[in-house]
């Protein structure tokens, strides 16, 4: 009796693992455009106070988030422009109403604006989920003049494809860009993986994701710069990919901007470092390493 149950568990778990693996297509032979050894996506999650608000944090926590819209995003634009690099700003639709001037400056400088949900959450109800995505697409389009093609969210792949999205930047099943498909094997999206180790919030935030103040993590920017440089350099050596996730309310602080300035400057001293937008990376992959036919 017990033995039969165990065998059944083996079958079920194996089948689940196989099905999950089949929904991912890695690109082991990934190559970049002529002369490029590594693609670095500088990405910002511009949620300002929205997530703090969603978690019912007190007003002064929201005030920290507001710093990202009032100051941080402007410093980051200035930093990227000074280095002549392109970034991707994952932007909740609601930010279009709160910080329109900053977003226009992002567009003006040629950076990409991508989706980051309406107010930093994906509703469980499918009708409401579509409402949030549609509202966000419309709001971003009004600022940029065209619909977003990338997202950092858990919106369903079918819905994203319906609205013209081609890529997502979330989670990290591989260190290089790869493709994801839905349960039916369709609705492909390129994933430009980001990892929390290369996320400023892991190092610079009090009370991250509901932790107590006593669990605060404030790291010396120099140390963060060292960790990120090591990650960059390892990927540089293997011809890979790096996605740096920054929050304007965290990385927009002066010392951290200075650290990023040194880090980007140091990356640029090596030959073959490409700083494209996420859309550019996705289009390159789709063109050079196509996904399964008819999925994207």
């Amino acid at each position, binding site marked *: 009796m017990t033995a039969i149950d165990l065998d059944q568990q083996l079958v079920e778990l194996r089948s689940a693992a196989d099905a999950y693996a089949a929904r991912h297509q890695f690109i082991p032979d990934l190559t970049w455009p002529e002369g490029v050894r590594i693609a670095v996506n500088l990405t910002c999650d511009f949620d300002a106070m929205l997530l703090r608000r969603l978690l019912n944090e007190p007003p002064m926590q929201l005030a920290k988030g507001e710093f990202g*819209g*009032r100051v941080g995003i402007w410093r980051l634009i200035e930093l990227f422009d000074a280095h002549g690099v392109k970034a991707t700003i994952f932007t909740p639709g609601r930010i279009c109403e709160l*910080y329109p001037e900053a977003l226009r400056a992002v567009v003006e400088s040629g950076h990409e604006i991508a989706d980051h949900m309406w107010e930093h959450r994906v509703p469980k109800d499918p009708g409401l989920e579509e409402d949030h995505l549609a509202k966000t697409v419309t709001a971003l389009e009004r600022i940029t003049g065209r619909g977003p093609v990338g997202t950092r969210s858990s919106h369903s792949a079918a819905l994203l494809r319906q609205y013209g999205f081609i890529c997502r930047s979330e989670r990290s099943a591989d260190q290089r860009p790869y493709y994801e498909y839905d349960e039916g094997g369709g609705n492909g999206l390129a994933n430009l993986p980001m990892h929390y180790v290369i996320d400023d919030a892991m190092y610079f935030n009090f009370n991250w994701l509901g932790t107590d*103040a006593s669990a605060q993590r404030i790291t010396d920017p120099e140390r963060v710069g060292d960790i990120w440089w090591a990650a960059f350099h390892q990927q540089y050596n293997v011809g890979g990919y790096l996605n740096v996730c920054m929050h304007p309310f965290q990385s927009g602080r002066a010392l951290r901007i200075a650290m990023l300035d040194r880090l980007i400057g140091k990356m640029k001293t090596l030959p073959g470092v490409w700083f494209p937008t996420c859309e550019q990376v996705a289009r390159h992959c789709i063109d050079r390493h196509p996904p399964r036919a008819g999925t994207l």
Partner: protein
Amino acid sequence: MPWKKGYTISDERSLADSELRWPDGAGCCVAMTVDLSVASGPEGVTADLTTPEALFGANQGLAALREVLRRHAMRATFAVPAIIAHIHRDLVRSLTAEGHEIAAHGFRHEDVSGLERDEERQRIVRTTEILADVTGGKPAGWFSLPRQGDRYAVGAVSPNTVDLLLEAGYLYLGTDWPTIFRIIGSATSQAAAPC
């Protein structure tokens, strides 16, 4: 601006770094804030006052700090709860005499986030009176610094705090974070910017 209500109480954009100017061509401004509260929880200063640490802070600790400030000819801003000014009247007065700024730090550095508007107003008015009586002038700034036992290291305000501070004639609200932001009125009412 109704779309900002419940989301933001500050300007959409600050001065750019390149636009910032200090008097006499100074390249940087260093402001020192000294927290004279001994509160550890949301109720504000309580029996914390009768601890060895509180006694040290009011005597040798503060004296040593003042000596350093004096040696470097530096002035600081002391965030003082009304109850502390009431108990250590001469001490606080002597700080004013040395050129330091005395700013308000609540009636007893209590958590005001759940207070009724009228009660918070009364506390602000009484705090202002006590500090003005001790120092000889109304304080210009109001602080709400975090306490060591707080869940969030940011300091607590209520939805009415900014409005009530404007009404009471305050010029700035200081927080723990390096953002002494310009009060532009809360999201609930469009009060004029005082500075």
